[in-house]
């Protein structure tokens, strides 16, 4: 049960600030932790490309996420 305000990152508009609620399990999660992204973090959606490839920014760190991954990351608009 996801509350109404919980949306996948792939649905987020360019420029919005979101809080990360859940990251998917597995390698992607490990790599994101290394990059500095954990559940509960605030990030900015820097770019939303057609098809759902998303670029997020946390401080000066920019990370590109494919649509399948951004679809599995659940966020809440801040």
């Amino acid at each position, binding site marked *: 049960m996801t509350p109404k305000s919980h949306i996948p990152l792939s649905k987020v508009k360019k420029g919005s600030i979101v809080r990360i609620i859940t990251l998917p399990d597995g*390698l*992607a*999660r*490990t*790599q*994101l*932790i*290394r*990059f*500095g992204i*954990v559940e509960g973090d605030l990030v900015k959606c*820097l*770019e939303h*490309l*057609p*098809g*759902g*490839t998303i*670029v997020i920014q*946390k*401080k*000066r*760190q*920019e*990370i*590109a*996420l*494919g*649509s*399948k*991954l*951004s679809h599995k990351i659940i966020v809440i608009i801040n």
Partner: protein
Amino acid sequence: MPTNEINHLEHHTHIEKSPIISDSVNPKLVLVGNPNVGKSVVFNYLSGIYVDVSNFPGTTVEITKGKYLHYEVYDTPGIYGVSSFNDEERVARDIILEADIIINIVDGVHIERDLFLTQQLIDMGKRIVVVINFMDEIKKHHIKIDIAQLEKSLGVPIVTTTAIKKEGLKELEQLIDKARQGGQNKDLHLKLHNMLNSVGSQAEALLVLEGDDYTANKHGIKPLDQREQLYIDRRNRVNNIVNQVIEEASVRKHITSLIGRWSLNTITGIPILLGVLYIAYLFIGKLVAQDLVGFTESYFGNELWETWIRFAVSDFITPTSFLGTVLIGEFGVLTMTVTYLLFLLFPLVFAFYITLSFLEDTGYLPRLATMVDRSMNFLGLNGRAIIPMILGFGCVSAATITTRLLASEREKTIATAILQFAIPCSAQLAVITALLMGAGFKALLIYVFVIVLVFIAIGTILNKILKGESTPLLIDLPPIRVPRMNNVLQKTTVRTFSFMKEATPWFFFGAAVIGTMEATGLLQVWQKALSPFTEHWLKLPPEATTAFVMGLVRRDFGAAGLYDIAMDPMQTVVALVTITLFVPCITSILIMYKERGWKTATIIWIGTWIGSFTIGGIVAQIIV
């Protein structure tokens, strides 16, 4: 001191070791850091010009080794953490485990990301010096780092540098001997220490605890799965430290970060991509492939070298004899092959690699990967696959090895098939460009159309046929930076020479085979046998068959063979389409078999035979 005990144990427990890592008694100084943090600049400063570059066994990962005082210095590939997720990490892991002292280079602008690796190295119990690089950019971004506090929190000595301006590097030299084990987390340290009996070193114990299969297998034990918890703890610890030591003004936009944004966005990104491709074409395709190579090949090659060698050899061997034909004939080992290698291939490959290395250092390629990600999804790939594709335009063989950076077997197979079929390599591309320029704009258009169509078709079909699905893109976008020319040149030199070293024997072998076939009349037999096919189905002159034989040896070699055949523009298109799709060169076939296994490789190989002649024939039936 627990450190001594650990080091002592380490020496006895290494079962397998890469031959690159020497057994010398000299202490090993290892440079470790995330990608694009300036490791090679520091490395070059320490080791001077006498360095030893080699590929790590079984990988394309380059390892650079040098000397500094009594130390052996190693540069390692950029990694975000130590484990075994990909080739870079495996190579770095092996060298880190052997290190006596680690110089950990940190990008001060991305300190939060980079300190994760630092903290992991500390948890491994290694002796460390931390270098905080890019102090100039830190100032520009108005970031303040409390170095004294950071030293206290981490427990290791720190030096700040602007490596490209050599600032702070003298201070680094003085600090190397002061490297020490950082502050240990008591609980973790105890846990690791209890594992020493079965694992041998604290560093390896940590890897086993973090679920690293390779290290666990090495010691015949099961990996423990505490990665998640350890990673989260480490991340929190790093974030706390960063919050204590960093003070920053609000993030301001710089022109470089704006360029970075623009190259991502579809609307501005496509013009930027076209611009980059056009400049690359002007440099490689026009300046080098046509003007420079035109000069070196005809003047140095045909006029000076070939005239001289023919003259010199004909004193001992009759030019019309069997040996004469093989050595100094039309496809002579000493004539055509030498000209081709030195005066055509060498400048081309150098030009290609310098362009690629330059682009790599700007930070543009990851943004390109991001922009094309969605489109690559339709071919069953993700954006990262654009890198082997671009590399393929340099050398299909090298690119086939690079498909290893793709995450799944499925993606590797698709990328390999596209490379072997539809991507012409730089040498071939040069000949194709030259021939198409002669054939006119319409010919160029048809050629590009057919090849792009095949490219899309292969990916789409394989994406439908192969089971499973592609892995999603997940990459860190480095800042856009102006490349350092000596860094670019060094990379280019290494890559060009390793390519030439690998290609040269095959060229001589191929020339000898063709020369022998010519001298024994086999070439004519082959031409006759295939001529109905060549003439009626492909509608080409019978001599074109020779090019296909040559193409078996090397693809570019085959395209070069088309040079001297009289063809009308549409015939040229058919011949070029066929030779582009046709069997790739022997080297790339061998590499494909090694990388993909005999079953997949054979299917792709046979596929290229059938595909090229079928498609070439269809095009011929339509346009000639």
